[in-house]
């Protein structure tokens, strides 16, 4: 029975390693180990990144803190359509919409705008669903990973705070506005006004 299993081609026998004279003496293996260790001790380069003096390399499309984009007139782009609030898996966005009137000089081309836009950054799971859902490129996730607060209340960002994140990051070069170049609706503007950043590769939605 064992002979046939030994000769069978589907069975691979794993033998324990042979203990020869050198292994039974222990010392050659110990010397080899010490040589490796001494090599690292004397000639090894540490791989430690000394944070916070050296910041990590944040890749493109990193999902950090949110921001609300402004349009070319400095108003908030968001049209209070509630798509992001609906898409959010963590239920961290709370919007209150306000209707506009036709004779309001600032908001005459919009139906609605958000009176209050609150994101609880501590509930957020930073999945980016809100950014994907937004039809007017109003909400985006930046590459800021270290915006923190001292209390839970401080980390519930309202509209002004989110707009301030925009003001801080739009010129930094690391977070270009990822806009679809006027293909989406009246609140998203064409390429020439999109805060000076080049169009995304492929030309955005529908290649425009």
């Amino acid at each position, binding site marked *: 029975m064992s002979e046939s299993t030994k000769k069978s081609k589907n069975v691979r026998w794993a033998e324990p390693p042979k203990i020869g004279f050198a292994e*039974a003496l222990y010392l050659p293996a*110990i010397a080899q180990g010490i040589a490796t260790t001494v090599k690292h*001790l004397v000639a090894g380069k540490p791989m430690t990144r000394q944070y916070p003096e050296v910041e990590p390399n944040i890749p493109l499309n990193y999902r950090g803190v949110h921001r609300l984009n402004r349009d070319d007139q400095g108003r908030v782009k968001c049209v209070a359509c509630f798509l992001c609030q609906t898409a959010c898996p963590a239920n961290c966005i709370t919007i209150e919409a306000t209707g506009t009137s036709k004779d309001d000089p600032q908001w005459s081309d919009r139906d609605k705008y958000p009176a209050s836009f609150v994101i609880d950054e501590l509930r957020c799971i930073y999945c980016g669903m809100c950014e994907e859902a937004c039809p007017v490129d109003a909400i985006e996730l930046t590459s800021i990973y270290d915006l923190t607060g001292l209390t839970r209340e401080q980390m519930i960002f309202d509209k002004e705070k989110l707009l301030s994140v925009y003001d801080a990051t739009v010129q930094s070069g690391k977070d270009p506005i990822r806009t679809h170049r006027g293909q989406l609706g009246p609140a998203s503007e064409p390429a020439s006004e999109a805060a000076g950043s080049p169009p995304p590769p492929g030309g955005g939605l529908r290649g425009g």
Partner: protein
Amino acid sequence: MLEWQNIWPLLVAMGIVLAVVPIVGLYMTFVERKIAAWIQDRVGPNRVGPLGLFQAIADGIKIFLKEQIVPNHVNRFVYFTAPTIGLMCAMLSIAVVPFGPADPNDQQGFRAIIAPGVDIGLLFLLAISSLSAYGIILGGWASNNKYSLFGAIRSCAQFISYEIPLGLSILGIVMIAGSLNIEQLVAAQGPGIAYWNVWWQPLAALLFFTAALAETNRLPFDLPECEQELVGGFHTEYSGIKFVLFFLAEYTHLVTVSFLTVLLFFGGWHFPGLTGPVDSSVAGYLLRWLVLLVKVGMVVAVIIQLRWTLPRFRFDQLMGLAWRGMIPLGLLNLAVVIVTLSLDIPRWWLAPVTVAFLLMAAALNAKSVADRSRQLATSRDRGPAAIG
């Protein structure tokens, strides 16, 4: 006998030891972390103070300010005395170890040893360090916890098993030098580097170093400690200062054992060009002190580095190594020294003969392992009845 002029060297030596040993124990935690980090391609603590040098002080302050938790179910008297006993034995054994150049003929003035002229120095040292097993066993017992007791018993079994090779390995040197006094043993390694004991007794040096690593529960023999990380062991119920006392006892033991390795085998403070402990100049004295400390530092660094190089022994492998490997080799070493000294054979042949015994032991070990694996292969192929 108790006049001031006889007492003051003792008090100064005691003061030095009591001041330096806890600080050294504390800084060894830092040194160990740094060496471990460099071996692992990291940097280690470098934030507290320049190059992280104040990290040890921060650790010390943290330990002293920790909340003292005494569990309800422990045996209170033994619980508090166990770490004290451990540290006491570790500190007592330093009394006969010279921590600087010390001449056995020097009777006056400051000597770099707390108890000079103790003619049974090594015997005292071995006896006192055997008492450290008490600290471990009482710690495990007081914890009133079967896992602690089990870990403590394993640690104790390891401790007493490796005391025998420790003693056997030193006997050869003692016979060659003719004295148990450590100062005499260092003086006998006198005139040059060719007289260091490690050339005449390499096998004994290896046995001593290995047994010393096992005595201090240091990798590769730290199974009781690692079990303590995993299960419990005698450290479990201890926190704060009581734990630090155990810890300090271990590091003190480590430093003592490094001192002994250097003093007994590597010539102590002797260095080519600088021999003899007493020179008429202060500079010579201090230079010898520096040489001794550098040698001890190198041994400590090797011990710390071995921890991050070798995997640990399993408990049965550990006991097998002691009882079936090191004790027979120690006895053979002793027999060779006795034969050499009584028949007046030139001493240079001690080294090759003892090393030959070591190689024979390795060959026997390899043969027995090969026989056993061949037996196992036979039983696998032809059934268990095929053996024998």
